[in-house]
């Protein structure tokens, strides 16, 4: 019972960390039709900024997160202007080639400046201590990640379903030319959603650093995981991403607890099974 409960808590926290990172990728792939393999690279940049701010400059955790998000978005703006804008609407393979190129560049540059070692982001007192919930104690950081995940899911749902911006975004996704003709400024919509996606990647990269440690090959190592989660959930779908992250997080964590020697075996076997049954992902739209 104790094992099941601790697996469940770890799986939930891990799934939520995955969710925060992957929902951004899901947005860019589902809404903007860009296969952005460099998504993990932005999460990694955020991790480095947060680590630098919190460990080397001694700033607080909250400030570090804030700086990381702002910094990553600022770095991404020229990239979007100069590179991504040229591959909107290109064939998928071109997008894959370009974004893998960007990933390689970012990895190479990070490796040069920060070295190949693992970077840690020191947690504040309040998050590193266990919290007593009555039934059992949980590491404070795990609770924080869960809260962030729930907050992001609800916030995004509200943004896309209930606000003016969400309506324009959905219109652009369904028919960009028609939305443009009706007076929606689609380039602005694209730029804002790209910034939101990158910001979420940054947030996920920082708060999920306990699960996915920050190092130069982070971008390549977890690229596949992120891509898998998005396609299992169905690109562009928030409930799909939540379900996929929780399910795959649970499978992965359970596999690691119970049969550590089989590593990724269960994860990928489950992915093949799921994709064979749901070729468009859990909540993917028909194309």
């Amino acid at each position: 019972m104790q094992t099941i409960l601790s697996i469940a808590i770890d799986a939930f926290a891990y799934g939520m960390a995955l969710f925060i990172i992957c929902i951004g990728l899901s947005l860019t792939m589902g809404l903007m039709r860009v296969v952005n393999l460099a998504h993990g690279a932005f999460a990694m940049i955020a991790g480095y900024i947060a680590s630098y701010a919190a460990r080397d400059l001694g700033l607080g955790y909250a400030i570090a997160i804030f700086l990381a998000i702002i910094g990553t978005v600022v770095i991404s703006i020229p990239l979007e202007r100069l590179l991504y804008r040229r591959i909107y609407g290109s064939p998928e393979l071109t997008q894959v080639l370009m974004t893998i190129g960007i990933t390689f560049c970012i990895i190479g540059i990070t490796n040069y400046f920060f070295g190949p070692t693992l970077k840690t982001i020191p947690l504040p007192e309040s998050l590193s201590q266990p919290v007593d919930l009555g039934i059992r104690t949980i590491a404070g950081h795990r609770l924080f990640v869960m809260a962030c995940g729930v907050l992001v899911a609800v916030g995004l749902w509200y943004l896309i379903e209930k606000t003016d911006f969400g309506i324009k975004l959905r219109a652009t996704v369904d028919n960009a030319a028609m939305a443009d003709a009706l007076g929606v400024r689609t380039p602005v919509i694209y730029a804002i959603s790209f910034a939101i996606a990158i910001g979420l990647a940054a947030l996920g990269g920082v708060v999920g650093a306990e699960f996915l440690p920050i190092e130069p090959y982070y971008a390549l190592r977890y690229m596949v995981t992120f891509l898998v989660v998005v396609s299992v959930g169905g690109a562009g779908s928030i409930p799909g991403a939540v379900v996929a992250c929780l399910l795959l997080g649970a499978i992965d964590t359970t596999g690691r607890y119970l049969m550590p020697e089989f590593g990724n075996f269960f994860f990928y076997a489950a992915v093949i099974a799921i994709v064979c049954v749901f070729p468009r992902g859990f909540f993917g739209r028909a194309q």
Partner: protein
Amino acid sequence: MPSVGGRWLRDVIGVLLIVAAGLAGYWLFPDNLALLTRVIAVALLVLSLDLITGYCGVASLGQASLFGAGAYASGIACVNGVTEPLTLIAIGAVAGAMAGLLMGTIMLRAHGLAQLVLSIAIVQLFHEAANKASAYTGGSDGLSGLMVSPLFGMFEFDLWGRTAYLFGLALLVGVFIALKFIVSSPFGMLCRGIKQDPVRIRAMGAYVFPVLLKMFVISGAVAGTGGALAAISTQVVGLDSVSFELSANALVMLVLGGLGTLYGALVGTVIFMGFEHIVSAINPFHWMTMVGALLIAVVLVAPGGLSGLSERIFQSGKSMKGGRR
């Protein structure tokens, strides 16, 4: 569309150019024959990927599972006493074809992104399986101790890799000619039709799935040949021969060279691996940045790959000569 005779002439010249380039490599870089043999093995992998991605429109990030199947099958056969090189190549090709059959059956169930993800999942499963079955594959230490007997009983696989290189070159040319026939056959045309519009092909009364599956099997045989060649020439089979990284690199080389032409696959492989070799020798810290910059530059300057670029230059040259656009 050039006349049939003109196409024949062009293909003969193309094959002669490949042979000439291969022999030039043999004379110019006698100290780097191991690398050049590796390039040939990877070129076979990229050719096999071109068959399904360039000709059938099925993108795959898991092609190394076919390459690795061939490499491990011939490696295991070699350790267990089959040492004739041509037999080993045949074993690799058959194993690759069987893996291709399996992979095609799974991958063709999905489309688009899901297909890409399935291919990744398959190569990761192959990787895990090769890692865990260490009794047969040597696990993460790799399968070593492959003692290959001389080719035709006469040519020893020597330390400098001369035999291995010339053997690989002959193999590549043979496979290339066979593939030229396959892609220009009615079957190859049908595959191209499926790439452009599967619905229409279905409406014309052809079955799409068996055609694509057949191409997967052929592609697996080619990739398995490449894997067997890598195993024979290096006498080691490592886990990296069935990795996601190799698959991704193969796709990058293919797109770099240009999809849907067999020459593009060869050009992309040679340029990518040559570039990687030179840059990592000059500055090991920056090679990844440089390779990334190369990829970005290719997308910006030559979206159709390098063969598309040369075609464009060629065509604009022609129209300038004609005096009109």
